[in-house]
């Protein structure tokens, strides 16, 4: 029999390729591409020099530094603790494991502003944690540490939820094999477990980082929003919007968007190469 591409030759659960791809593209266009196109459209009125002037304004550049710095710290902290949490959830049986598992998704479900206000009051000098830390000379609210903390809070599920399934896929036999071959615990972790989790961990951390770059609600309450010190880029966009400077807001937003897109694309390409190796194919 001659194979055909009409889709009638093979029975599939979902309707034909043409229809399903069509709906997918329509959805992507409406929900993702259309708003982004209009954002870029806003920029059409700007000359290159004007655009450059807006995005390199001193106060805005300072906000890039703060945002990227805090997001990087948050992502690294999350990479470590997210890995640990995923490990605990997958490798151990203990009472309340299910509850802890569900708790991991809380930052997704909680309105970020609520999280922000809670964190801000808790860590302010009169708050519960703030009172404990103040005598030690540690200030969290209204500093970049607070920003990083809020970012870490909202983005931790990205790491846990990307690492967890990969870890579940890694049988305990693998660690045991390393041990029977004389490897120490650290060596087994470094050379056997970590390389296996590496793609998922990097992806999860990358996602957490990108998410933190755009975080707004959770951060502004704890940040204190002092120009050049604790202003994040999302706030700059918000400030421009309040001044009815839609073009300026779009210009700054386009920078955040471009950075995020490039990062996500790079992650995807890199991960694809790694996965091909694990599952056969020429790595």
């Amino acid at each position: 029999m001659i194979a055909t591409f009409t889709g009638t030759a093979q029975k599939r659960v979902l309707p034909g390729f043409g229809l399903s791809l069509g709906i997918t593209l329509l959805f992507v266009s409406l929900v993702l591409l259309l708003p982004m196109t209009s954002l870029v459209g806003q920029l059409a009125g700007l000359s290159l020099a004007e655009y450059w002037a807006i995005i390199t304004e001193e106060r805005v550049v300072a906000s890039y530094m703060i945002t990227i710095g805090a997001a990087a710290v948050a992502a690294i902290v999350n990479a470590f603790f997210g890995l640990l949490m995923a490990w605990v959830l997958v490798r151990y049986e203990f009472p309340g494991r299910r509850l802890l598992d569900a708790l991991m998704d809380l930052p997704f479900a909680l309105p970020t502003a609520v999280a922000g206000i809670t964190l801000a009051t808790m860590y302010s000098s009169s708050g519960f944690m703030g009172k404990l830390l103040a005598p030690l000379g540690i200030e969290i609210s209204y500093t970049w540490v607070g920003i990083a903390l809020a970012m870490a809070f909202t983005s931790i599920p990205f790491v846990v939820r990307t690492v967890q399934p990969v870890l579940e896929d890694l049988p305990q036999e693998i660690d045991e094999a390393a041990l029977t071959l004389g490897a120490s615990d650290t060596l087994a972790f470094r050379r056997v477990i970590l390389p296996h989790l590496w793609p998922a961990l990097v992806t999860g951390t990358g996602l957490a980082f990108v998410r933190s770059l755009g975080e707004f609600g959770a951060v502004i309450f704890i940040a204190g929003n002092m120009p050049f010190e604790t202003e994040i880029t999302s706030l700059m966009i918000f400030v421009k919007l309040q001044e009815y400077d839609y073009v300026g807001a779009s210009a700054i937003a386009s920078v955040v968007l471009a950075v995020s897109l490039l990062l996500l694309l790079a992650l995807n390409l890199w991960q694809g190469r790694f996965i091909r190796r694990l599952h056969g194919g020429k790595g």
Partner: protein
Amino acid sequence: MSIRLTNIAKTFGRTTALEPLDLNIADGELVGLLGPSGSGKTTLLRIIAGLEQPDRSRTSSIHFGERDVTNVHVRDRRIGFVFQHYALFRHMSVFDNIAFGLTALPRRERPSASEIRTRVNRLLEMVRLEEFAKRYPAQLSGGQQQRVSLARALALKPDVLLLDEPFGALDAKVRQELRRWLRHLHDELGFTSVFVTHDQEEALELSDRVVVMSNGRIEQIDEPDTLYRHPANRFVFEFLGDVNRLEGNVQDGELTCGEARLSVDLPDGHQELLMRPHELKLLEAQSPHSRLPVTVTSASPIGAEVWVELVADWLSEPWLATVRHADFERLHIKRGQRLFVEPRRWHRFGNAETHDQEVEIIS
């Protein structure tokens, strides 16, 4: 290196995985742990490996030769372990997998890079995978992956090689091939090995001695031949092969069960006789000693023999007889045919006695 287990037991929570047992394995021996799932055979293997800790007791100990390894960590026990599902490191090439144990050695003991290369190449040659050194495990077949895992386990020249259902995940033909190859390798290199299997054929073919286990207990330890011919108890007898059962009442030296009759030299009362498929002879007419009429329901040629399934009103479950192709043709056996069975011999396990009573019937 010999292995000596003394008073080893294991409980998981409230379930007993292993009842206290002793086991001695001689230097260079290849021993199979055979039993149904849940019999404790894998737990025993993992205890030998050090992957599982036996219950604490002052009298329990594990010795490799003269070395007491009871409290020695798995990484220091100098064992090679082969897992059922290979447990290869998927992000490493075949070469790096095999080299892992050597590169994991502390710097003082680690051979030079060129020495490692020579040794890995020799192992690759031994498992006949020279061309696959640069491949990743996902690019190999199951049999090839298991050979890599064997080479990896042997790279450190372990005192003891332990294999957990090593061929369980492979298809029948590859399994047979690998089994012979492992036997060959064992004879050549002379390491002591213990393997776990639930396949009685595999245990009987591969082992010098077989340890039959059930419910966390050792039922019998013997050479395959002795085990098959002189099973210690009914469990061993039933586990080692197909069994045909005949239950009936004996009176005046004749056992009756419905219309079936068999002359037996047994006291009066209820008796149960067991017969292997190859111990049944098929006849066209009844003999002076027996009248066991049956009907053929299927006949399938499997290898050197034909497996014939038999039913009768007096049987609660069908019987299986194996006949030679010559007899099969002579009797023109086909489905629906009525024949008579005559047992060449039968076995009986009393409730109290542990040894079976075997009776040859001379006709």
